């Protein structure tokens, strides 16, 4: 039943062009920008009123103020109680809500076209005439504080919180979420004043996409917003970003965890940086998707995790690179080894032509899919506006992706991924994680799930066991490809840290940052294999003068077992 036509992937039917719809743009005298796209395909509309102020505008002693303000907009206005507001929106079958982000605050609405005028009036009511009732604020504070307890039970929240704190230092982006004590400080007056300062027309853009009549909506916008007074734009306190000079390890001890949530992070670039497209394509090759290197290695080949990815988070003033996976605790060590191997590979070696073509095809191909829904299209327009992207950004997006070269990618990787200075953050059972991960970093700190620092000594595993002595020369036999290869370890020990070297027939290696915990020894040997720099992970158990364990390397599918004795 051989059907030869099945043997190769079929060819394209011929590319169908996709043109980004042309928006109508206008501006009120008070500075409010207006962007319209009429799209009659479906009898619905989407509205976004986007303000270029966000959580970074929170005063230093009022963290959480912007998000409280945004949440409170629908909890009572001059003409509607909180309940009446919810009922009115939902009676239209519509959605209307405000959301706070680091750089921006966006009021979003969507409704059937026949209710365009009604939903717009409700949006105006929320934006211009909120009253922030005290009883509703009390409830918001209570619920947010309780909600935080739930957040703190989730490993990804804890990992993101530590990552932001470490890589952004004193910059306002370092605040992942306000704490309970921040929330309780917020008063009604704080919110009202902050609303007055940030909800100003000259800092806002209204975007409308869908089935509506531009002329009549323009009239309604003018009638509702022309008395809205422009004001001075509130500047955010942009403190300098910290510089890093070494790899650090931060563990959040979450007892009972069955996985280790790993994030490796460093600062990268802001959203409108000229290198953005090089980084975007580089990241597509490295870890953005299910056919990227990290996923193919850690999930498909090794089965360590359900998914391993890398991300570029680019905000208005700065951004980060993060590689992440949730792995089963027992393979934390092996997973870190694979991560570093992939991060180094994309810096040290040029990607292939095929990888480049695939990444570009993906990024250019999925672009129109995002424009299928009104929500997707408004999102693209709002991002262009809020991140100061060029006028022709959407039209030229696919060309900018196509221009990226293999050189650009390697340069971007070397500039924006810094394996030797990464912050390693791991949420998991600290007792299990610490012995596997500490050798990868030059510093270690441990927190509990409340964010309080813990004493590292409390987490030394098997602290009833005396720390074994591994100093000396070990002659080991390693099971490799059906043979026993002789390998010698020459180790020196200082407390629980170990350094030394590895000698074998196929090369030598340096051991730094080794660690002994009880009678468990673990280390990474930096070595050369067939001319390439690589890392060999060593895990051993010491019984007097004998040691058994495994050695592993990213190029070898299974760890190699070894055993031997001290000379």
């Amino acid at each position, binding site marked *: 039943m051989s*059907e030869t*036509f*099945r043997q*190769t*992937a*079929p060819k*394209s*039917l*011929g*590319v*169908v062009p996709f043109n980004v719809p042309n928006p109508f743009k206008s501006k009120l005298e008070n500075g409010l920008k207006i962007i319209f796209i009429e799209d009659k*395909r*479906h*009898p*619905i509309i989407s509205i976004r009123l986007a303000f270029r102020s966000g959580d970074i505008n929170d005063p230093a002693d009022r963290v959480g103020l912007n998000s409280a303000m945004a949440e409170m907009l629908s909890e009572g206005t001059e003409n509607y109680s909180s309940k009446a507001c*919810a*009922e009115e*929106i*939902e*009676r*239209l*079958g*519509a959605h209307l809500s405000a959301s706070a982000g680091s750089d921006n605050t966006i009021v979003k609405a*969507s*409704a*059937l076209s*026949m209710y365009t005028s009604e939903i717009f009036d409700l949006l105006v009511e929320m934006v211009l005439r909120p009253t922030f009732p005290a009883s509703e604020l009390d*409830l918001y504070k209570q*619920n947010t504080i*309780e*909600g935080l*307890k*739930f957040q*703190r*039970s989730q*490993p990804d929240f804890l990992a993101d919180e530590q990552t932001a704190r470490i890589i952004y230092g004193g910059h306002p982006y370092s605040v992942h979420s306000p704490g309970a004590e921040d929330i309780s400080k917020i008063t009604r007056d704080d919110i009202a004043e902050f609303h007055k300062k940030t909800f100003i027309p000259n800092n806002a853009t209204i975007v409308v996409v869908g089935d509506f009549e531009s002329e009549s909506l323009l009239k309604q916008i003018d009638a509702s917003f022309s008395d809205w007074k422009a004001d001075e734009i509130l500047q955010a306190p942009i403190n300098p970003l910290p510089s890093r000079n070494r790899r650090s390890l931060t563990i959040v001890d979450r007892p*009972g965890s*069955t*996985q280790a949530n790993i994030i490796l992070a460093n600062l990268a670039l802001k959203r409108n940086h000229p290198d953005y497209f090089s980084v975007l394509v580089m990241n597509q090759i490295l870890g953005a*998707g299910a*056919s990227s290197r990290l996923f193919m290695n850690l*999930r*498909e080949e090794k*089965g*360590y*995790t*359900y998914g391993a990815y890398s991300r570029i988070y680019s905000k208005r003033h700065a951004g980060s690179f993060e590689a992440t996976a949730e*792995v*089963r605790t027992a393979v934390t060590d092996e997973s870190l080894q694979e991560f570093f191997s992939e991060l180094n590979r994309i810096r040290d070696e040029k990607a292939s032509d095929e990888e480049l073509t*695939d990444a570009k*095809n*993906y*990024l250019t*191909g*999925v672009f*129109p*899919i995002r424009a*299928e*829904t*009104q929500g997707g299209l408004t999102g693209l327009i709002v991002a262009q506006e809020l991140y100061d992207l060029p006028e022709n950004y959407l039209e030229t997006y696919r060309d900018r992706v196509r221009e990226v070269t293999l050189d650009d990618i390697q340069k971007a990787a070397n500039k924006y991924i810094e394996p030797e200075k990464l912050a390693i953050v791991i949420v998991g059972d600290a007792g299990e994680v610490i012995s596997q991960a500490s050798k990868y970093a030059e510093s270690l700190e441990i927190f509990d799930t409340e964010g309080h620092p813990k004493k590292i000594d409390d987490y030394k595993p098997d602290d009833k066991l005396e720390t074994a002595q591994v100093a000396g020369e070990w002659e080991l036999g390693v099971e490799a490809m059906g043979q026993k290869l002789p390998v010698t370890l020459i180790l020196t020990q200082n407390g629980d840290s170990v350094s030394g070297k590895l000698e074998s027939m196929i090369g030598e290696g340096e051991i730094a940052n080794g660690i002994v915990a009880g009678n468990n020894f673990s280390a990474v040997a930096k070595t050369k294999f067939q001319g390439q720099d690589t890392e060999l992970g060593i895990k051993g158990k010491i019984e007097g003068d004998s040691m058994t364990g495994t050695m592993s390397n990213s190029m070898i599918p299974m760890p190699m077992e070894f055993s031997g004795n001290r000379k």
Partner: protein
Amino acid sequence: MTETLNLKDLELEEYTLENGLRVVLNPDDSIPVVSIAVYYDVGSRNEREGRTGFAHLFEHMMFQGSENVPKAGHFQHVMKAGGTMNGTTSSERTNYYETLPADQLPLGLWLESDRMRSLAVTQENLDNQREAVKEEKRLRYDNQPYGQIFDILSTMVYKNFSNAHSTIGSMAHLDDATVEDVQEFFRVYYAPNNAVLVLSGAFEIATAKSLIDKYFSTIPSQPKPLAIDVSEPEEVAERYRNYEDKLAPLPAFLMGWKIPSRRTGEFNALYLAGKLLYSGDSSRLYQKLVKGEESVTQLFGFTDERRGPSGIMIGAIPKPERNLEKLRETIVAEIKDLATNGPSEEEMTKLRNQLINGEVQSRQSSLSRAQGIAEYALYDGNPSLINSEIDEFLEITGEQIRAVADKYLNTDNRALLDIIPPAQK
């Protein structure tokens, strides 16, 4: 506010290949993309005791390569063509879908047909995907607070094994699975006569038909899988259980009721009753428990929609030191009010507008159209329900909602699960 809106029908063309594959085409060229949905009539409901988790494990195997597509080649082919794809498993079905630039329709059909006819079920793939599934279980269920409570409640609501066990299944059963078991599962359930194929988006009907014929018509059909029995007694399987959740920060509870199958008047009316109770900030329970008595931080509810007996679940995470019993009395009292007085006029207007709005929103994307059509084609043998089912919902009266709330929810025949955080040290 009584304005009505007549939605334009989606254009549909429906036919069946000789091997039994049911095909539905929904051409719409407004954006140059096309979505392909392949739905197989196999879900956790088809699993036997001692063999749970197979349907979901199999979903993973479908990305492991076939005669002409290497392992993980499916991801790569789709992504390098500029598309997106995934697969999911529920109690009712296993689905696979991709959205591609319109010119890549042949690629999508080639990929779907190659794995339907010649999946590579090898020991290595099986071992590797078992590990991925175990990680998925740790990530989504074991390592999340409240991660396992819905699966526990299902075992309390449903008595029939087919309905009661979880989709993720037992890891011990997966460990027992042999390559032969998995090959047999593929032969029985992944046959063209046990699937539907739906295309939605920018394509020429004639081109699509000839491509579908080329790629799918020579895949042999298989004997029909054994019929399954999903019937349930009226009573829930277990009325009360408490469960210690080691990761839960606060106590919580979950209640479940057994209701009739989807596509019945009673199910539809109960779906609307549920929306009035728990859906949105103006819903009755949100206003009572989150706003009024200010006692819960999280409230959630949903219908567990199935082809057989289905469920309604309502749960809450109360603030500390609240009397959970009192909260449940509030929920029961609100159900009783709905069962006695029925919905208000405003509530009926709200439901009507929400139904229409939801319907239009879901028609925007080619993928969501393809998925909706595929469900009606697979479950009901009638894809045109995508155009007409909404009318059935819009015709439901307040009195019908009151009556089903009384019959199915206003009763002690319900399951209650108390979730208890670990004892404070």
